[in-house]
């Protein structure tokens, strides 16, 4: 792993492992509460949502669900790093 190798310069070859958390109705859609999603860098929240949509149950995800990156609300274009935790949040109903 030379620090200046061609592979390191081209970010397209680098994979990011994102820990995806699913809650409530979304956990029911996917039949899982947690998934590991591998995406090529650079990646955003949108990249992960697109990946989820291709999985069983994913077609029912709304176009722009509320999402948190590492426990802070994020946007579709929020950039992700390897090891990030992305939570996909159904409409909140606390209180």
């Amino acid at each position, binding site marked *: 792993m030379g620090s200046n190798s061609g592979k390191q310069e081209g970010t397209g070859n680098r994979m990011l492992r994102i820990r995806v958390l699913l*809650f409530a109705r979304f956990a029911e859609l996917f039949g899982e509460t947690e998934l590991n999603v591998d995406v090529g860098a650079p990646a955003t929240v949108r990249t992960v949502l697109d990946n989820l949509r291709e999985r069983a149950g994913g077609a029912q995800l709304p176009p722009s669900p509320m999402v948190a990156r590492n426990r802070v609300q994020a946007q579709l274009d929020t950039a992700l790093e390897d090891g990030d935790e992305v939570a996909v949040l159904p409409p909140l109903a606390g209180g």
Partner: protein
Amino acid sequence: MSYLKETPLDVRTVAHQVVSAEQGGVVTFIGAVRNHHAGREVLRLEYSAYGSMADLEIARILEEAATRWPAKVAAEHRVGTLEIGDVAVIVVAAAAHREAAFDACRFVIEEIKRRVPIWKREHYVDGTAGWVDPTAPAGVSF
């Protein structure tokens, strides 16, 4: 310490966190499980949460309230299965005078509903169940 509790909430425990000799006005909001929603008869509720983020978000809301009003506010939210009449959430705001206490209490409960990742599954008397969804026309998603 977590703001989310798996055991029954107690208003005195929450109030104890903020009430003191300087505070002349104490406002308490108690949210309890209702036996009806969107025209359906509700039997019981299940609250679930993204616990680590919910704790951070409630802490942020309480900090925001403390910067906006001269008040001290404490809050707790139940998770798990609740029956009709059970207490789901308690907010206690204490201030020298009532105006700040009312305003801070109102702010905190509204922000909890708007920002904290908590979900509610309703079980109905007719045997069906649905996710409470304030964005859905019927108020519920199945």
